[in-house]
């Protein structure tokens, strides 16, 4: 049970860590000062949430586990984030599209997690949902602004949505840990969030004059630790200091 709980927490937290890392890469590189600050603020929120989850995961795991070695010392196959969040910052349209496709899911997910019978997870969710509602607001606004902007911004946003759409189905796949935790009253039935997700995403994209891709084929694997090529490079950055100077502290 403890090990399943540990796996379950990772399934939530790894998404926050990896997306936080991606957004952190934009520090000093955002297209404008305000968006730069916004992306790094969102990154900070996500990393804060990650810390809460990993501290709890370390307790569930026991032994020598700490939030730091969970974050920095796992191998690529041991990270169970969805493929969507590890996709690169290609351009601002991709950054926003990735954020939006995740935020809508994240908000729906946290809304359910708030009523988990696990008090710690419910408390983290109640804290995080307040922050994530600002994230979703920010990304939806930019989806509309770029989608319904100039021809160039529209085309770029449409391309980003077309490319990233293929990673959205995985959000709703339930792992063995998910299923065990749902039975225990702890976990969220993500497969049930699909309908609300599609509705909300469609509403915003329609307002943004962006066509919904009619892809029938979707990528998956992240939740089983099988990642896209980008993940190795991301982890190389993320883990560099701990791999080079093991156990270093600030």
């Amino acid at each position, binding site marked *: 049970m403890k090990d399943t709980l540990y796996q379950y927490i990772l399934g939530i937290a790894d998404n926050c860590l990896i997306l936080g890392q991606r957004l952190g890469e934009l520090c000093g590189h955002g297209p404008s000062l*305000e968006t730069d600050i916004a992306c790094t603020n969102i990154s900070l929120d996500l990393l804060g949430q990650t810390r809460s989850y990993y501290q709890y995961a370390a307790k569930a795991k026991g032994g020598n586990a700490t939030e730091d070695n969970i974050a920095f010392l796992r191998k690529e196959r041991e990270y169970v984030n969805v493929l969507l969040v590890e996709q690169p910052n290609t351009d601002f349209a991709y950054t926003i599209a990735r954020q939006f496709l995740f935020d809508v899911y994240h908000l729906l997910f946290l809304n359910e997690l708030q009523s988990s019978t696990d008090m710690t997870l419910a*408390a983290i969710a*109640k804290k995080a949902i307040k922050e994530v509602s600002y994230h979703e607001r920010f990304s939806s606004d930019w989806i509309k602004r770029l989608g319904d902007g100039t021809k160039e911004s529209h085309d770029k946003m449409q391309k980003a949505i077309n490319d990233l759409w293929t990673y959205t189905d995985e959000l709703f796949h339930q792992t063995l840990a998910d299923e065990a935790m749902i039975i225990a009253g702890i976990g969220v039935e993500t497969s049930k969030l699909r309908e609300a997700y599609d509705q909300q995403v469609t509403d915003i994209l329609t307002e943004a004059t962006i066509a919904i891709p009619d892809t029938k084929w979707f990528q998956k694997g992240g939740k089983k630790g099988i990642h896209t090529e980008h993940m190795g490079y991301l982890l190389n950055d993320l883990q560099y200091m701990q791999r080079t100077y093991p156990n270093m502290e600030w």
Partner: protein
Amino acid sequence: MISEEVHIAKELIPILEKVSDPEIPVLSILEMGVVRTAVINDNVVEVQITPTYSGCPAMDVIGDDIQAALKREGYQSTVELVLSPAWTTDWITVKGRKALEDYGIAAPLNASADKEALLEGKRIVKCTQCGSTNTQLVSQFGSTACKAMFQCEDCKEPFDYFKCLK
């Protein structure tokens, strides 16, 4: 888990009052509503603090500052971070709001007005320089996780707004 009630032992108030958020030095952590409990147990002070935002980097510093301040007064202490109930801007005291305004950070008016200011674009936030409410949201994200950026349309000064969490 703790309740919304704050429990702070009387003799600890003057000590904790001197500890402030490093990002907002004018505001004591008590006025900010960050300290949830501070009780003396067998000569050890047990403090529970709650973060404003999950990723607030000031929390580690605040924890250390609390322990240092208590140590100066001869107390050993433990500091625990609690998440529930989640912090809200409603916990900033009246005195705290005043201190924020004087420092140049507009304070949240109240919870519902606050959402309108940040999400509906209503012009209800007062400029900290000239007092005009003819102000505009520049970005929902500011220099720290707990602040949004505004600009006054009358005196043209930019200013921070302490962002609502509700």
